[in-house]
């Protein structure tokens, strides 16, 4: 009996491993029902976990008009997504920051021409515990004083930031160094990406930060706007004064409206999807990207992000139709405080 089962197991193993290896040469993904879409019915999306909910929503809704399309979404992160994107391993990649110069030159070296598609705004919020009754608002220079590298080990009490605040410890919570959120926050507040003090509670998972801030009365933390709107009763939102009256006077409370009209500065950032020109030239890719610009105003709010106004999406579509490839941000360097509409019109 045992002998028989062993023989069976071994022969099954041999059979299956042969089956597996003979499959190597054929690619089965393209074989089924490719009739509707010239150039294949697969579309591979990957990239940032921040953009993932948007990609997932688009892929899911697109199935209603194209049930045969095989659209998949991965989660490699912004940097990981670009690595695959410049090797043409994927068609679209989500990014919570624009493509960098080195990624752009890698794409050029591999002959990958791409479109840059801003899809939504994401706001970063600065929050404190709901029982914190001394902070009404905070300025960018105060935030800089808290988070800059030289604050490490020195700025440890609330009254060091503003003298009228209590002489009590301040407990900091923020995004981990691997996330695009961290890059953007440090770029916008400290003035240089990735430049930050190290002695704070860091997590790549924003839910951990929500938990931390909401259970510690002396806390101050920052994370994505969507995580605040799902946990409003447990957190107190801080209006931010960027000390620049040109884009709204005084401290501005983040909301869909203030993020969209760019008065909540500097902590609102655009999110992107990059698409290869090759993907746009395929029937499925073209349909999907058109679907993206048309449906984003409706789908983006469901994912917790803030959509652009219709005109911006139209400008994005015009760039696709006109075949304007490449990134706007290779010359702009940073997305902090950028007027997207003006840039898209150029």
């Amino acid at each position, binding site marked *: 009996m045992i002998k028989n089962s062993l023989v069976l197991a071994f022969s099954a*193993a041999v059979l*299956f491993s042969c089956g597996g290896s003979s*499959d190597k040469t054929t690619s089965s993904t393209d074989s089924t029902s490719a009739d509707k879409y010239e150039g294949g019915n697969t579309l591979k999306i990957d990239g940032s976990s921040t953009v993932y909910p948007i990609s997932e929503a688009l892929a899911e809704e697109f199935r209603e008009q194209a049930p045969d399309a095989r659209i998949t979404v*991965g989660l490699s992160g912004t940097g990981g997504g670009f690595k695959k994107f410049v090797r043409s391993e994927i068609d679209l990649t989500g990014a919570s920051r624009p493509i960098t110069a080195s990624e752009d030159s890698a794409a050029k070296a591999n002959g990958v021409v791409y479109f840059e598609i801003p899809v939504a705004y994401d706001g970063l919020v600065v929050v404190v515990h709901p029982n914190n009754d001394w902070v009404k608002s905070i300025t960018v220079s105060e935030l800089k004083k808290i988070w800059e590298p030289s604050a490490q080990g020195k700025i440890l009490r609330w009254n060091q930031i503003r003298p009228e605040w209590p002489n009590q410890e301040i407990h900091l919570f923020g995004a981990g160094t691997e996330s695009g959120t961290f890059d953007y926050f440090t770029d916008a507040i400290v003035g240089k990406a990735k430049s930050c003090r190290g002695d704070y509670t860091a997590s790549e998972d924003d*839910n951990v930060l929500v938990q931390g801030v909401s259970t510690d009365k002396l806390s101050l933390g920052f994370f994505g706007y969507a995580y605040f709107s799902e946990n409003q009763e447990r957190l107190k939102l801080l209006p931010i004064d960027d000390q620049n009256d040109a884009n709204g006077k005084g401290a501005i409370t983040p909301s869909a409206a203030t993020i969209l009209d760019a008065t909540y500065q500097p902590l609102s950032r655009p999110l992107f999807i990059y698409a290869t020109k090759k993907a746009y030239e395929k029937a499925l890719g073209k349909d999907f990207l058109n679907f993206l610009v048309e449906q984003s105003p409706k789908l983006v709010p469901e994912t917790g992000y803030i959509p652009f106004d219709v005109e911006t999406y139209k400008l994005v579509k015009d760039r696709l139709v006109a075949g304007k490839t490449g990134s706007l941000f290779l010359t702009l360097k940073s997305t902090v405080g950028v007027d997207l509409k003006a840039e898209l019109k150029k």
Partner: protein
Amino acid sequence: MEETLEKPDKPVSQKKPKMTFESKGRTVYYQLQDKIFKYFALAATSLGLIVLVLLLYSVFSSGFDRLDWDFITSLPSKRAAKAGIYTAWTGTLWIMFLTTIIAFPIGVSAGIYLEEYSSRSRMSNLIEINIANLAGVPSIIYGLLGLEVFARFLNLGASVLTGSLTLALLILPIIIVSTREAIKTVPYTLREASFALGASKWQTIWNQVLPASVPGIITGVILAISRAIGETAPLIVIGALTYVPFAPTSPMDEFTVMPIQIFNWVSRPQKAFAENAAAAIIVLLSITFVMNAIAVYLRHRSQKKVKW
């Protein structure tokens, strides 16, 4: 003996035992030591159980209501209430199946070779040390290897096959080590008896040694597979997806697995997704429990048949 048991709280000093009661004092001391260790071991055992109970309680209390047939048969979705794990559990089963089929014969054969055939040489020592070290390599390293070798060099892409090959590499050392341990427990007299009856080495291994060590081997293999289905990091590195609207139908299809889906849901801002994650964890735990039950059953069945 009786007397000391009646007075357990009698103060005992180890350093200065009274000469006449020396042996008695020692006995009390050793008994106390025995008791302390017993309770320490009990505490250590219950700690594991308490953690398991807490985990089960928190997962079941937040996820059980979400668990229904629709959840098992639906595709992932942006709406938490509509989302399901169909593609995730089919992916996990595919991975489990292929990984076993790849790792089992290779691992067991390697174990047999190292234990029965290889002579004690520098080379075999080196191999042994390397296998032991491989068992401790972080799983993400296997993911990088899988990405370069299987996905890119062999051009298998982010397929179920690539994932299975990568995880098979990950669990091979565990299977090899447990196979060797299982073979070691077979008494040498059994082999001698077999040789004495004129059996060849292969006949001895196939008819005597392997049947006798099957319980240990199967336990090792199933524990290794249980580890493999909980892995996320290496699969994300090779390019396993998160949103896949179709179940894999061949080893070359793209896929996602339960841990990736759970990881994604846990990190979403909406609380309803956290409930989905808890429900998915219940399903993943059930798969693991079923596998362990199969391991226990197989071990029990084959143990009954081994008589020497």
